[in-house]
């Protein structure tokens, strides 16, 4: 075997380089994502608790989840509701990003302020919003009453109708800056001469937006949606601190349910079945989003 590095085919060398670049990240993902997922998959077909040996029980956990467990379905619908709200935040962020990206004075200040909510610890965000939404002493009701917008204070977090939208609003508040930064970094990659060319062609602002901005922003928007969706549906701290899943099950989402099943009820086996279902669900939605944004994670294939 006297094959030296130089003798290797160029494409093989490139492949080795690529995989070497990917290896460290893949290792981390293997340890802290793939293996735990595999653990969950195995566990979902078993009856197990920390003190008992595992027994294979086939699809019993899934059967219970799908046919007997109202809470699972409620949590599932709530999770869908949150996913559906991600585009609202993204649309607001897109608008803000376009405003901030224009040549106005003080745009750095605006951008900084809008992003400022993202670095906050979610627990702190939850504490403060829980108070803001309070029925009797919360700031929102105080302002609404002072301005005579409402006669009776709205019991945001204590109401079956308002609790979920309230949590979603707090979530959007926190994620807005994040979306905006992703979109801004996407806007930055759009070559300025494209706009100039379009300007010469006489396209108006709206056309420029639809024809140039949106298509070229597709990777960023896809990223925003996926991240936004994942961030929202896994916003465990926010829900846990703001409402604890209540009132009733009005704000129970799958992650809070998974956590409660595992650590409060010691039903890790059943929680694993819900986890696996949750995972497959998100994968399906992402696949769909990828399709809608044109494939390849939204990126435009250039070569």
């Amino acid at each position: 075997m006297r094959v030296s590095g130089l003798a290797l085919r160029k494409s093989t060398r490139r492949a080795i380089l690529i995989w070497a670049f990917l290896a460290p990240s893949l290792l981390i993902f293997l340890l802290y994502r793939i293996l735990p997922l595999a653990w969950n998959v195995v566990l979902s077909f078993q009856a197990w608790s920390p003190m008992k040996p595992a027994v294979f029980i086939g699809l019993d956990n899934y059967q219970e989840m799908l046919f007997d467990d109202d809470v699972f379905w409620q949590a599932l619908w709530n999770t869908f509701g949150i996913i559906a709200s991600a585009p609202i935040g993204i649309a607001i962020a897109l608008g803000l990003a376009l405003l901030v990206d224009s040549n106005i004075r003080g745009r750095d200040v605006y951008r900084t302020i809008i992003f400022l909510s993202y670095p906050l610890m979610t627990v702190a965000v939850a504490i403060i919003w829980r108070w803001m939404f309070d029925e009797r002493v919360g700031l929102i009701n105080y302002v609404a009453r002072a301005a005579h917008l409402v006669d009776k204070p709205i019991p945001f977090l204590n109401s079956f109708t308002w609790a979920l939208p309230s949590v979603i609003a707090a979530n959007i508040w926190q994620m807005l800056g994040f979306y905006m930064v992703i979109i801004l970094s996407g806007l930055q990659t759009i070559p300025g001469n494209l706009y100039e060319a379009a300007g010469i062609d006489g396209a108006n602002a709206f056309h420029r937006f639809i024809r140039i901005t949106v298509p070229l922003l597709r990777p960023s928007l896809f990223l925003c949606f996926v991240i936004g969706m994942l961030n929202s549906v896994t916003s465990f701290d926010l829900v846990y601190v703001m409402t604890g899943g209540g009132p009733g099950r009005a704000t129970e989402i799958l992650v809070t349910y998974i956590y409660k099943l595992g650590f409060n009820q010691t039903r890790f086996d059943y929680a694993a079945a819900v986890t696996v279902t949750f995972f497959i669900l998100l994968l399906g939605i992402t696949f769909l989003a990828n399709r809608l944004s044109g494939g390849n994670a939204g990126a435009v294939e250039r070569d």
Partner: protein
Amino acid sequence: MDRRRVLKTGIAAATTLFAPAYLHAQSNKKLSILTWNIADQEALFKEEFADFKAANPGVEIEWLDKKGPDLPAFYQTQLVAGTAPDIVDLQGALWVEWAANGAILDLTPYFQADPEFAKLFNADYLSSWVYDKKNYLVPFYVSKTLLFYNKLMFNVAGLSAPPANFDDILKFSQAMAKDEKTGFITLNFDWLYWPLLKMNGIELLTPEMKKPAFNTPEAAAVVDRLAKATEAGAINKIAWTGRWVEPNGAFSSGTVGMMHAHSAAYFFVKGQGRWINRDSLGAVEMPGDWSTPTNHGFAISKSSKNPELAFALIKHMTSNKWATKFAGIRRVLTANIAADKALLAAVQEEDPLAHAVLQTQLAHTDKMTGNWPLPNDAQIKDAFWPELQNALLGRKDAKTALADAERAVARVLRRS
């Protein structure tokens, strides 16, 4: 050395290098103790441990403390990994499940070995930790619910005495409700609201604890009245949605007439409410003298390598001497008879209000409710409470909600 051996030795060496200190020391006489949200007593615990170490040379003690919601997640992870702390401080009904599943040690033989030890404690509190005729915990500190009331608001509404029955609670609440003011609030975690139902003769389960017993027309009527009072603003909605800070914060802001809470709430409320003094705050037992305990006790993990030593440390920490000191500093009852007597005597002069609060904790210890030794307590709670919330907050009518709750609870009972 072949490659395999090199690899193995390398890994072993790396493991020793990186392994945390507490794993090395495991072979020694090493104890670890996990407490529940009581990091403020660091100085006292250090003193207690030093004293224990002086009497037992060569013993090392590792002390950990976690907040309530975090402790179960931490302890269970440690259980799976086989590194559970020797001693664990448990609150509420968590212990039953772990006792039933064999995570914690049956302490009955230890109690039997030293009959004098059990006599140190209030028998009612001690017996609230019996499951399957075995005793699993030693009392650390105890508290149960009582009724706090805002005398200023009572005066405004022309009320002179605390409520004597359930009707009074609702009537008084309505009388005090106005604008942002409400009449009644209760804590609701860990079945703390159950005295409201118990005083109306409602039971959660049948006596043999195999079937739900709460779905009755009487229960529906009671729940319905509570829901109507909530709708009318007589009962503060936080009663059914808040946890700890919100209800206590609301009551201490001076806008809620009565609060049903455990005695630990007193110090929170007193710290927050500027209106509170011995003339403005009342503390009595709930009508019917029913209360729900939220006790803390020490358990020993079954995986402990030194259970004898662990029990010795528990005995040390709950002895007359240290329990008295702990009760005095923390202003809590310990179920240690001597310590509690000393505490009550001490506060009688300096804080009559605290005295009144603590007094309720030692009265009617035979009328405790909501502390059923159910191995699947957490699951039953999770099945029952959201449905009750549905009814109390007016999303479902009481009858439907109780029927749904019955189905959910029955399902849990069937599964186990």
